[in-house]
């Protein structure tokens, strides 16, 4: 069904959800075709937050474009920065120094925790559980404080530069990160106590928005949604980047692919992230933080695609270089945009109230969907 298709059966109606609906997590508009309370089809209308980031890239130098990637998935700005820097470094045949790589891993994993925490809080809030939001935001605050101490910004961090890092670690960074890791795991158990044991939460989520691994693959869905459907596909394991092969961690999976399983997968991912951070922070190699690259970033003619495991799924950057200081073309493969395609499949036959749960469980950020 398209937005203009206005042929309806007698008992059908069209409901416009968004773009101001608080539970669409931004400016997503969904046109729902309903039969009573049952959803017959959904039609996503996006673009309310379109800023033309890919076009902006063509008018900026490689260095100048780096702050803009933070503004796509603004809840995982560090992951975006890492993907972009890795893509340009691949174009230039440069590799970040071991010290820079270790710091990058620590910060991106902290960002994964922060992103999942905000997801957990808002997802629970959407479904009527107000309490977890305050606790998750409290823990997220600790992560954001580390970001602020390290690079001077909390959300749009611009933490990484092409070739390594701009800032040396501040005094007490390791201690702060270790302290966070130490007190964070009991906090995850606390969320479990609040939600996992709660029968209202379980019954509300079980069997809602089921998607199997095969359908996920057809839609190109990645990230926790895919892993909750039973496929242990994690780019950190399957094609390691930035030194992820040195760290020991598991890829949490579940089998039934419903909203409850996606909740469990994300909680387990936070625990695994803590494991990675603890390994990385225990031995940050000494040495320079910036690889030896030319001051003016001018990659040779060619193209490169790099994808990383962002909190929401596979985040890819495809850059075509024509040998100048500006990218000839830059294309982003945002996880939210691709995962959002599965909304129609997941919400078919569901109740209207479940659509809110399904949008929340896909974990989209509209800045990234619209770019």
């Amino acid at each position, binding site marked *: 069904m398209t937005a203009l298709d206005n042929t309806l059966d007698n008992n059908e109606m069209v409901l416009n959800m968004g773009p101001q609906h608080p539970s669409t997590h931004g400016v997503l508009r969904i046109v729902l075709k309903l039969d009573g309370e049952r959803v017959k089809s959904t039609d996503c209308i996006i673009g309310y937050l379109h800023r033309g980031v890919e076009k902006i890239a063509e008018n900026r130098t490689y*260095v100048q474009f780096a*702050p803009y990637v933070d503004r796509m998935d603004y809840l995982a700005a560090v992951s975006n920065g890492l993907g972009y820097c890795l893509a340009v470094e691949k174009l230039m045949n440069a590799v970040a120094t071991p010290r820079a790589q270790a710091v990058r891993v620590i910060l991106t994993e902290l960002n994964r925790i922060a992103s999942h925490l905000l997801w957990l809080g808002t997802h629970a809030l959407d479904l009527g559980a107000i309490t977890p939001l305050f*606790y998750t935001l409290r823990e997220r605050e600790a992560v954001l404080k580390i970001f602020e*101490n390290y690079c001077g910004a909390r959300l*749009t961090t611009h933490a990484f530069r092409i070739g390594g890092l701009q*800032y040396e670690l501040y005094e007490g960074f390791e201690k702060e990160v270790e302290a966070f890791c130490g007190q964070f795991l009991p906090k995850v158990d606390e969320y479990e*106590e609040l939600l996992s044991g709660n*029968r209202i939460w379980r019954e509300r989520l079980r069997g809602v928005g089921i998607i199997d691994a095969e359908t996920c693959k057809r839609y190109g869905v990645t990230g926790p949604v895919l892993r909750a459907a039973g496929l242990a596909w994690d780019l950190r394991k399957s094609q390691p980047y930035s030194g992820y092969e040195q760290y020991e961690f598991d890829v949490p999976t579940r089998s039934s692919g419903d909203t409850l399983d996606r909740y469990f997968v994300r909680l387990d991912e936070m625990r695994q992230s803590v494991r990675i951070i603890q390994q990385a922070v225990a031995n940050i190699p000494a040495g320079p933080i910036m690889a030896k690259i030319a001051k003016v970033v001018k990659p040779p003619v060619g193209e490169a695609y790099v994808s990383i495991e962002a909190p929401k799924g596979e985040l890819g950057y495809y850059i075509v270089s024509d040998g100048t200081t500006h990218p000839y073309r830059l294309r982003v493969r945002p996880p939210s945009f691709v995962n959002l395609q599965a909304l129609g499949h997941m919400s078919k036959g569901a109740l209207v109230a479940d659509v809110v749960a399904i949008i929340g469980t896909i974990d989209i950020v509209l800045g990234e969907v619209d770019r």
Partner: protein
Amino acid sequence: MKKFLRSFLLLDLLEGLWVTFRHQTPSQIETEQYPSDRPAVSERYRGAPRLNVHPETQETLCISCNLCAVACPENLIVVGSVRNPETKRKDLVTFTYDLSRCMFCGLCEDACPVDALELTQDFEIASYTREGLIWDRQALEEGPRPTQYRQ
């Protein structure tokens, strides 16, 4: 039977409630009472820009090299200078920084070779007008001039 008793006595819900009550102690309040309680921003915080002057001579440190203006992704810095015929150096005349378009990425302060341009810890830069966000050299060197109200 045990399961029935658990669900009948609402034990799972009470466990969640117990978590909530554990957090009732006033020592765990995280809310900051801004503005009476000033938030401590970090040392590297990227806030309002400042054009540093020499602490003794009060002369600007800026050498009008224009590198910050070139580095800026938004092209919001304009450096005006004249060539001094005696010293053969450029003397800074005007410096305009359009804060309304700034995204505080810090590329300008990274580019500055003499630490003249700096993003400071000042985060209160709201203005009633767009023009008020376009800072000239005086505002950059001495800080913004907020409206003074009569008592």
